[in-house]
């Protein structure tokens, strides 16, 4: 009974090793694509260009990430935040809020990118005239920010 189990383990190990060996090149390629999407957003001046840039950021957000999970989660949150910002600039705060939500769902743990998303959420809510909720979002961002700065002070 243990022999088939060992065989399964060996196959899994082999597959994992192959994946681990293949991942650095895939991660580099993923990083290049993310960089391209941000470059497009940097160049976007007109409404059409901004919309196209937001769509490109969205495509990269949905693409299966390659590389260490903690880093790719941060990158995806940043992609969502930037897409939300572009929609906000285009006068689409509801769409912006959708992207904020998507970004926050990637990794709910406190981070500088969670705080950025909360700031974008607050700006979107202000655009929708919901000042109280906007303030709550900002206060939540302050909480996260304070916690991160405390960690930074304790472990410089």
């Amino acid at each position: 009974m243990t022999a088939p189990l060992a065989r399964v383990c060996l196959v899994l190990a082999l597959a994992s090793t192959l994946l681990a060996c293949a991942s650095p090149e895939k991660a580099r390629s993923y990083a290049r694509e993310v960089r391209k999407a941000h470059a497009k957003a940097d160049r976007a001046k007109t409404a059409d260009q901004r919309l196209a840039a937001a769509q490109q950021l969205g495509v990269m957000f949905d693409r299966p990430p390659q590389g260490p999970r903690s880093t790719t989660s941060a990158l995806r949150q940043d992609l969502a935040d930037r897409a939300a910002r572009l929609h906000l600039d285009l006068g689409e705060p509801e769409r912006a809020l959708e992207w904020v939500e998507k970004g926050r769902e990637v990794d709910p743990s406190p981070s500088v990118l969670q705080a950025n998303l909360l700031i974008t959420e607050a700006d979107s809510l202000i655009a929708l005239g919901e000042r109280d909720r906007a303030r709550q979002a900002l206060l939540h961002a302050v909480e996260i920010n304070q916690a991160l700065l405390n960690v930074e002070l304790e472990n410089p």
Partner: protein
Amino acid sequence: MIDDDVVEPAPTDAEREELERAGSLLSSAAHFELSPAAFARGRAELDQLLLRKESKHQERRFRFRVLWPLPAALAAALLVGLAVRSKAGPPPPLGPELATAQNHFLTAELTGAPVARKDLDRATRRYRKDLLASLEAPR
């Protein structure tokens, strides 16, 4: 039909010597033959020896069959652990510069002071650059 009249010639000296040697062999044969009891005892000992050897061999085979998956599974677990660890990778940079820019931005936003959005955008861009660089760095 045996002809009684035919007289066998007397054996030659050489033949007699040969016959005597055979006779002496026959008379001593009993000394070399095992009694049935001794034969049975010997057979039982032999069987026991053979059985012990077989059971030892079987035990070794059983032990190998049972134990070989353990080191294999251990090695597999180790490899999977390494692969998972490489997938998890090092934590992303904390982004102290971005945290500081956020702090200034949030303080300004909540106190009504002039908001420096550009500083926050610049710090976010630098943090993004660090994240992408860490992903592109050889591991």
